[in-house]
């Protein structure tokens, strides 16, 4: 499989994994390993000073996985920038998944605030991976200000609805000079395969694996689907047609005509 290159790093895996919603850190670690992932996303939250907190980082081997902190919870550019800087202090690396979601119901990203935050963070030396609506114009503006990827959503986050924004993502892929990571809403391995077949460079999956009956099994399924989709894309998919075209010879039938 060809390598995925984001900023100055190369990856064998094209499946990024989110670490939220797992029943335990052990199950999360098992699923991340089974997925063959090399990039895992994490969120930043206040410590609960009255209760003992699980240490997520103890479950993630930082020598194997690149930690990608997100700015989830940010409602505008200012909050996202603050979270990104805190995350850099906590992780020691300058990669950030930028998300600005003022709308609490659909959690759809705010394009103008995301662009504003991206400009500041890029200037501040961050490797910025912005989560966006499948908006080709915004995607171009973001890559123009120096983001390392664009990450259009397939459907609302956590909805498992699959690739509802496929037509727009195709345009984003066609125009992109940075990797396109399809994020949010991929509910089944076939959805991931579909995105990869279209030419997405990678996919990011969390809910569909974390909340599956068997997260490790589902992680393997997503891994294979992501690889299959990439291989199909690289192999040049055959064209579609309106009528039937026989695959078998139309001569030499066992009958006299």
């Amino acid at each position: 499989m060809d390598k995925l290159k984001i900023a100055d790093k190369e990856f064998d895996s094209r499946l990024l994994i989110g670490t939220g919603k797992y029943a335990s850190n052990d199950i999360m670690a098992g699923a991340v390993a089974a997925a063959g992932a090399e990039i895992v996303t994490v969120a930043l939250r206040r410590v609960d000073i009255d209760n003992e907190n699980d240490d997520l980082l103890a479950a993630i081997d930082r020598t194997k996985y690149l930690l990608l902190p997100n700015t989830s919870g940010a409602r505008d550019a200012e909050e996202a920038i603050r979270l990104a800087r805190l995350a850099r202090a906590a992780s020691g690396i300058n990669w950030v998944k930028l998300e600005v979601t003022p709308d609490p119901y659909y959690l759809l990203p705010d394009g103008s605030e995301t662009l504003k935050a991206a400009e500041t963070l890029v200037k501040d030396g961050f490797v910025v991976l912005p989560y966006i609506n499948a908006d080709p114009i915004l995607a171009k503006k973001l890559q123009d200000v120096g983001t390392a990827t664009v990450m259009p959503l397939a459907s609302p986050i956590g909805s498992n609805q699959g690739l509802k924004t496929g037509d727009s993502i195709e345009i984003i892929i066609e125009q992109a000079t940075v990797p396109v990571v399809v994020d949010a809403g991929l509910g089944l391995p076939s959805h991931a395969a579909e995105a990869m077949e279209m030419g997405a460079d990678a996919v990011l999956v969390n809910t569909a694996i974390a909340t599956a009956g068997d997260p490790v099994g589902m992680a393997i399924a997503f891994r294979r689907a992501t690889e299959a989709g990439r291989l199909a894309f690289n192999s040049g998919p055959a064209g579609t047609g309106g009528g039937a075209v026989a695959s078998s010879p139309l001569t030499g039938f066992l009958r006299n005509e």
Partner: protein
Amino acid sequence: MTLILKINGVDKGFADDRTPENLSELLDDLGISQATVVAEIDGLIINRKDFARTPLQPGQAIELVRFVGGG
């Protein structure tokens, strides 16, 4: 004088005889592992290596954050 700090949005008082001298002592007092926490005092990020030499002043707003699972 009792030291009162606003920690993660909640006022917390410390009696005179157990007042933490610096951020490192505060985390110990709260039973929070320093290896995984990042702190912000009045909007300014304090790097982990500076915890022990960051004195605390009454009324400071301290944010203590750490990574949790997220997508």
